[in-house]
């Protein structure tokens, strides 16, 4: 070998494969303002639609007068429920097995509900038209408090369900009841509580919040009357599912529907479901024969499309005096708003909330979830978390702190004592999951050592003494959180959406010059798929990542997939990518064997090509194999080099992590400062450490927002009082704390590359860390649990209630 021959390290580095902090290729266009978003789609003759919305939370719609609106210059049509009934689209099915009004049909059930759709030649005319639509309402008593939903005299919200004692998920107990979902062994759990030496019980609420992506929900629908084809550009996290749903409800042949999700400005669960705007824009295009654009504004997004959480979790733990947990009992009252439009796998009305046993070895547990209707917006989406997993993590992590407090134990010590041990994996939880892998003790101890946890506890003790002596008005809290996520929905044995198994897919096509294109059923909304997917392929087949173009979001070209949410892309599509790449590699090996005139078994893969075992100079690069695939394949072999893989995962993946938040709170104003935040994540094999770090930063920032103030709050009459970014807490870089990230690596044993999801872990683990920090700060004054969000005035209120402020 001469000096010019690259070393093995250089050849590996040239691929920019897995483990490389490869810069995000999509950022070249994003940072230059050259992204292509839905609102950038401008078609000749395109019309604009916008909604008349209800000012009332609950009212009968007596009349809708559209004559004046139709006189506004530029206004072409006003669509109402009556119009939609002519095409049988006044109501639409939800992903949760319920139905939802597309436009108000007889009554409205939440503030800002869609009442009429005004179609005009431009956005201004549409809004002028909205102001001329006269709607006559007869206000009805609003139901805002979910705890009153099943009172015997509670107002009837869903008249369409009158007499229906069974819903999509079993019996309904009350006219405002949606479902009851029960998991676990009740008798065994009750027995554990009867025998328990120590128990705790607390109603832990996770307030209503909203994913609020920077880009709101929007679409452009264009119906070609001649071809009978409908093209939809939309902000879709799951474009194929949207195509199937549109086909089923609009009765259009699926091959005549083209769904294109271009660049997406954040999703966070907000863009999984189907909204009235999509249906109305499609109908408007069919009616007018022109393309129709619908773009939500911020207030509409916050108040009408898919909130998250609103879970009220009465939680009990049974334990021994020594702090060994013996049982868990949880009842959830779930506020779903006016329609059950949760975006969960179809058989999971409360998502994967049964991960609520967390990282702990509970011998028995029992869970009941009651879903109820209220006069609030529908939704209940997984806002940067797998389905209801952040609720579950918050529930158990708060409860473990409450138990530690009751036992007089350190919260970290209590967790270490109850963790599932490394040798117990695969671990079968009391509520039915098989945890694939984990090493919780190592992660927790690394967190404690890196942050010098013991010294922080000592400092806290000193500060508490100083506070009691009147020397400071500041209190200090340490928020410990240890979470286990369940991501990668999911195995066909337990996950589907409307009957479609939750597999995902990849198609790779190599070109003669050693380059290629890869398409997936997922859809990046900022996760960096164009970068990381190419890295998996680079390592698997030895072609530089820069030579692989990744394309997602076009249902005409991409293989069918279930989309990107619930941290499923890497666990499911990531696996499909590796499997498709391995098919490419297998064919490449046959071609190389033919060209090198040896048997396939005599070859070994070596970074970027195949080498004859024991004869290092006999080597054929993947680049050359690509060329050969198009001109000199072995006799009988088809030319070309491409592969498709549809991956049905055998199990979920279970990322975990250990977080610590150090917070100081000024009791006189309630103002907090996050002094330090340490996040250790274990997501198995790390594809791009820089992107993981970015994901963790983003997820922690959203967790910080939610725990410390981000709330969709309703007043007693059902008005949203936090419907804009003035009042809905969206932290800027000024408010956002500094993040310290760390990791351990416990690969998933069943995933082809050992990777687990990571995008949502920081939200799941972060919220309890912040809330536990606040609660820990106040605990020495006698409180056991303070509800989120922990904004300034509520912190002050807590201090005042506890006697720390006069």
């Amino acid at each position, binding site marked *: 070998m001469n000096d010019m021959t690259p070393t093995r390290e250089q050849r590996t580095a040239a691929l920019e494969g897995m483990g490389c902090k490869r810069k995000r290729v999509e950022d070249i266009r994003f940072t230059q303002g050259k992204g292509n978003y839905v609102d950038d789609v401008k078609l000749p003759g395109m019309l604009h639609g*916008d909604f008349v919305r209800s000012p009332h939370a609950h009212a009968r719609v007596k009349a809708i007068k559209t004559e004046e609106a139709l006189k506004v210059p530029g206004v072409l049509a006003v669509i109402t429920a009556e119009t939609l009934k002519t095409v049988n689209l006044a109501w639409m099915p939800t992903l949760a097995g319920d139905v939802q009004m597309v436009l108000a049909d007889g009554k409205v059930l939440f503030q800002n509900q869609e009442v009429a759709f005004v179609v005009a030649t431009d*956005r*201004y005319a*549409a*809004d*002028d038209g909205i*102001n001329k639509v006269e709607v006559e309402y007869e206000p009805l008593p609003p139901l805002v408090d979910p705890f009153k939903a099943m009172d015997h005299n509670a107002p009837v919200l869903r008249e369409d369900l009158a007499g229906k004692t069974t819903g999509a998920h079993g019996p309904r107990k009350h006219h405002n009841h949606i479902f009851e979902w029960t998991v676990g062994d009740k008798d065994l759990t009750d027995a554990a509580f009867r025998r328990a030496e120590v128990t705790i019980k607390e109603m832990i609420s996770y307030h209503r919040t909203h994913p609020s992506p920077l880009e709101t929900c929007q679409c452009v629908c264009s119906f070609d009357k001649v071809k009978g084809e409908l093209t939809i550009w939309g902000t879709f996290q799951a474009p194929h599912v949207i195509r199937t749903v549109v086909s089923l409800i609009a009765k259009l042949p699926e091959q005549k529907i083209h769904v294109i999700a271009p660049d997406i400005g954040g999703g966070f669960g907000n863009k999984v479901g189907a909204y009235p705007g999509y249906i109305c824009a499609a109908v408007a295009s069919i009616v007018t024969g022109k393309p129709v654009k619908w773009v939500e*504004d*911020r*207030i509409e997004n916050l108040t009408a499309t898919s909130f998250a959480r609103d879970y009220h979790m009465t939680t009990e733990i049974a334990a021994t005096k020594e702090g060994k947990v013996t049982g868990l009992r949880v009842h959830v009252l779930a506020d779903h708003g006016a329609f059950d439009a949760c975006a969960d796998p179809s058989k999971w009305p409360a998502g994967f909330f049964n991960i609520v046993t967390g990282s702990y070895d509970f011998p028995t547990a029992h869970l009941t979830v009651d879903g109820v209707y209220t006069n609030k917006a529908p939704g209940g989406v997984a806002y940067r978390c797998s389905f209801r997993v952040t609720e579950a993590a918050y529930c158990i992590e708060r409860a473990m702190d409450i138990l530690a407090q009751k036992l007089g134990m350190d919260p970290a010590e209590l967790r270490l004592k109850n963790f599932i041990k490394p040798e117990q994996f695969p671990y079968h939880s009391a509520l039915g999951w098989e945890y694939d892998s984990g090493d919780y003790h190592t992660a927790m101890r690394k967190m404690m050592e890196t942050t010098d946890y013991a010294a922080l506890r000592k400092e806290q003790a000193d500060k508490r003494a100083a506070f009691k002596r009147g020397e400071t008005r500041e209190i200090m809290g340490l928020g410990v959180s240890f979470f286990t996520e369940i991501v990668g929905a999911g195995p066909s044995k337990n996950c589907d959406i409307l009957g479609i198994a939750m597999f995902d897919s990849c198609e790779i096509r190599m070109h003669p010059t050693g380059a290629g294109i890869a398409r997936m059923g997922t859809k990046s909304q900022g996760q960096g798929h164009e970068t990381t997917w190419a890295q998996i392929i680079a390592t698997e087949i030895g072609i530089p990542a820069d030579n692989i173009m990744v394309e997602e979001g076009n249902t005409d070209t991409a293989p069918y997939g279930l989309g990107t949410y619930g941290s499923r892309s890497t666990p499911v599509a990531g696996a499909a990518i590796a499997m498709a790449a391995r098919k490419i590699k297998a064919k490449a090996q046959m071609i190389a064997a033919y060209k090198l005139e040896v048997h396939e078994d005599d070859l070994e893969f070596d970074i970027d090509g195949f080498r004859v075992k024991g004869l290092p100079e006999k080597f054929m690069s993947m680049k050359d194999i690509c060329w050969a695939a198009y001109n000199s394949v072995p006799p009988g072999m088809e030319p070309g080099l491409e592969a498709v893989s549809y991956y049905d995962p055998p199990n979920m993946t279970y990322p975990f992590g250990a977080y610590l938040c150090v917070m100081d709170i000024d009791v*006189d*104003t*309630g*103002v907090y400062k996050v002094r330090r935040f340490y996040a250790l994540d274990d997501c198995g094999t790390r594809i791009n450490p820089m992107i993981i770090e970015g994901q963790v930063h983003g997820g922690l920032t959203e967790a910080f927002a939610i725990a410390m*103030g981000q709330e969709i*709050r309703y007043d007693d009459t059902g008005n949203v*009082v*936090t419907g804009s970014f*003035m*009042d809905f*807490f*969206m*932290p*800027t870089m*000024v*408010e956002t704390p500094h993040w310290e990230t760390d990791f351990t690596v416990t690969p998933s044993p069943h995933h082809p590359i050992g990777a687990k999801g990571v995008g949502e872990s920081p939200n799941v683990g972060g919220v309890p860390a912040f809330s536990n920090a606040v609660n820990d700060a106040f605990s020495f004054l006698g409180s056991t649990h303070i509800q989120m969000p922990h*904004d*300034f*005035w509520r912190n*002050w*209120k807590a201090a005042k209630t506890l006697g720390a*402020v006069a």
Partner: protein
Amino acid sequence: MIPGPFSYHRPATLAGAVKLLADLGDDARPLAGGHSLVPMMKLRLATPTHLVDLHGVADLKGISRDGDTIVIGAMTTQHELLTSGDIRQSLPILQEAAALIADPQVRYLGTIGGNVANGDPGNDMPALMIVLGANFRLSGPGGEREVAASEFYQGAYFTALEPGEILTSISIPVPPAGHGYAYEKLKRKVGDYATAAAAVVLTMAGGKVATCAIGLTNLHETPLLATDAANAAIGSNLDAATLKQAASAAEAIMAPAADARGPVEYRKHVGGIMVMRALQRAAGRAA
């Protein structure tokens, strides 16, 4: 979030602007930085049929010194206040407050005239104007007149401005050399209005407060001058008891609305805390 139709006018002179507003009547609104009016228009809470943009009127711009008075043109932006040497030297409290208004992008466009003339109780500058004893020069169809800042605010969004009148400039007497000042603003995040804020300008003599004025922001439908609180501070060395007394006196005149920033009780309580902290910080700065 789409405004209704309106016509746009851009006069080049003050006289032209005044005439336009007089001719167009109640349906016209002057446009300064637009950071209050335009959002209101997007929500269609304000629906003027004519906007008279004042950006073309050169006479409304600039900061000058006239003896012991600083004169600030109404169209001076918050950013220009922050970069003015005259303001830094003579009215540093204006820079402290301006830096707490919204964010840099808003401060490049938002004007001091718009901030003081809109009558929004959440705006920061009005309380400072009262504390500093500023006078507002107004120009309208009936000619020019001066109104003291302390007489200007009548209610939320109601001011002494008559129909067709424009605020043209603000005159502020320069506080004595060695004065102490502080603007304490509690807000939830960058860009938010104050949950509570207090402005203090004082002088010290022999370790005691000699003169003192205290203003309060967003704690009432108008900015407040907390005279009793200031009187409590005068003559004291701002010991703990005096600070508490000043805070109580200030709280007694507060009447904030409950909103997402907190209930009335909280906003008054932190209003008192802002007064105490502003007094302490101002005293620490005084010569």
